[in-house]
């Protein structure tokens, strides 16, 4: 890791959690003492089984819920404040979460619309994003006419339309078949390389995490803590061929071992 946050204390991390804890009203402790730094432009995958609090961590960063302990800052501000002032965040859910009554283009343009941008200003950016995810010819169709993978592409395009600095993804490809998932992994990695956002990606799929991320963070079961962090060793080459390489299998094996270790 060339720019490990620990070795560069002068530049504060883009997302910074210190001793973060989250206890829900029912008394369920979802997170305990989570300390994590994400540098600007990084791609971090949070890996853990269901119920380990990784989604909770994502929602805390999004400012959708407030932590019950510790500190959390996005770009030096409290998450909700950062979101309100910077207009710099986007979220991709487990479901595509599209508005069924809107066309693909109008779904993609929603964040710009909520931001008060005019129709003419929106159109160009929407077309750009539809080109980017290969759905230009589906601009005028409705979500129910698309396949699951295509809907997820629309969801990705919508998340990126406002040029977010921070993209939060909550197991976005979990409901897709393996082939579609792999293709979307390649697409997301390409988008990350070209669009320059910081990504925080939650998944329980080790291969997906290894393929996508610069850094894999392994979480322990409830209450979720960070068990270990692994720097992904394959620097640039994230082509489908990578999945067949022995180093890839070795790294995935290492992540799996850490996961097992954390759950003992």
């Amino acid at each position, binding site marked *: 890791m060339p720019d490990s946050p620990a070795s560069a204390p002068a530049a504060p991390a883009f997302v910074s959690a210190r001793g973060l804890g989250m206890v829900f009203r029912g008394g369920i402790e979802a997170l305990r003492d989570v300390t994590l730094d994400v540098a600007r432009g990084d791609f971090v995958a949070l890996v853990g089984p269901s119920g380990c609090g990784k989604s909770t961590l994502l929602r805390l960063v999004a400012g*959708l819920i407030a932590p019950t302990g510790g500190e959390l800052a996005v770009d030096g501000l409290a998450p909700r404040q950062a979101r309100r002032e910077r207009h710099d965040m986007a979220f991709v859910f487990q479901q595509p979460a599209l508005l069924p009554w809107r066309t693909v283009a109008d779904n993609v343009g*929603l964040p710009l619309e909520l931001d008060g941008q005019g129709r003419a200003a929106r159109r160009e950016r929407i077309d750009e994003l539809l080109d980017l995810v290969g759905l230009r010819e589906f601009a005028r169709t409705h979500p129910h006419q698309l396949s699951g993978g295509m809907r997820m592409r629309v969801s990705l395009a919508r998340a990126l339309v406002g040029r977010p600095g921070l993209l939060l993804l909550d197991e976005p490809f979990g409901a897709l078949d393996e082939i579609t998932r792999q293709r979307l992994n390649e697409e997301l990695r390409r988008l990350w390389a070209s669009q320059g956002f910081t990504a925080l990606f939650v998944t329980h799929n080790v291969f997906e995490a290894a393929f996508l991320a610069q850094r894999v963070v392994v979480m322990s079961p409830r209450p979720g803590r960070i068990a270990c962090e692994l720097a992904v060793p394959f620097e640039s080459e994230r082509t489908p061929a990578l999945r067949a390489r022995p180093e890839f299998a070795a790294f995935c094996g290492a992540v799996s071992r850490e996961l097992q270790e954390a759950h003992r």
Partner: protein
Amino acid sequence: MTPARLRTLALGALPPLLVFGVVVLLWHAAVTMLRLPAYLVPSPLLVAESARANAGMLLRATGLTALGALGGLALSFVVGVLVAFAFSQSRLVQRCFYPYAIFLQTVPVVAIAPLIIIWFGQGYLSVVLVAFVISLFPIVTNGTAGLTDVDPNLLELFEIHNASRAQVLWKLRVPNSVPYLVNGVRISSGLSVIGAIVGEFFASYGRDRFGLGYLIQATSGLLDTATLFAAILASTFLGLAIFGAVTLVGNAIVARWKE
């Protein structure tokens, strides 16, 4: 319409039509074999005869009842949507008034109708109001559900993009409620016909102007059972027609809302 669609339509209509034919035949057989008197059960032929002889009167009565039902349905739509808005905007308002909405639903409309006539007098307005009272509830409940049962992910999506309260309402809650409202109106459309007929039991439109409700009462009083049957059939057809029209329009509107 494509030939294929016509074919499926015809195939769909065939079984119920067949049942209708069999029932009419059985009815006719029962009346002739058991020698039932016409004032008790008129034969289908007699009913058809009476319907033809009184066609003009039946049509006019059906038209007036339709106006009463549609007036009540329209009013309940306007008021129902406004009430649903109020309910969806404030949990407190909903908690205060929802029991009374249920009360409105459980009190039999036959019991309320005389009261409405005391307050609003004879005539069209009272009939519309009776139809309104009975058809209001489904629109209120469906409208409220449509405005509040929104996918939590979508609410979070709007929150992430810092949407205002007004944006959440107009760009999310209102469009979300459309299929619910369509369903509510469909349920209410059948009820509004019942309401109008009950209203006409108690309120008349004036000399020589009457709806199916009055006709049903008058013919039963005269033991003119054949005409009574014809009036009942006309009420059924009116209900089906309004329900069918609302369903057709509703399906066209909701076509885009499919998940």
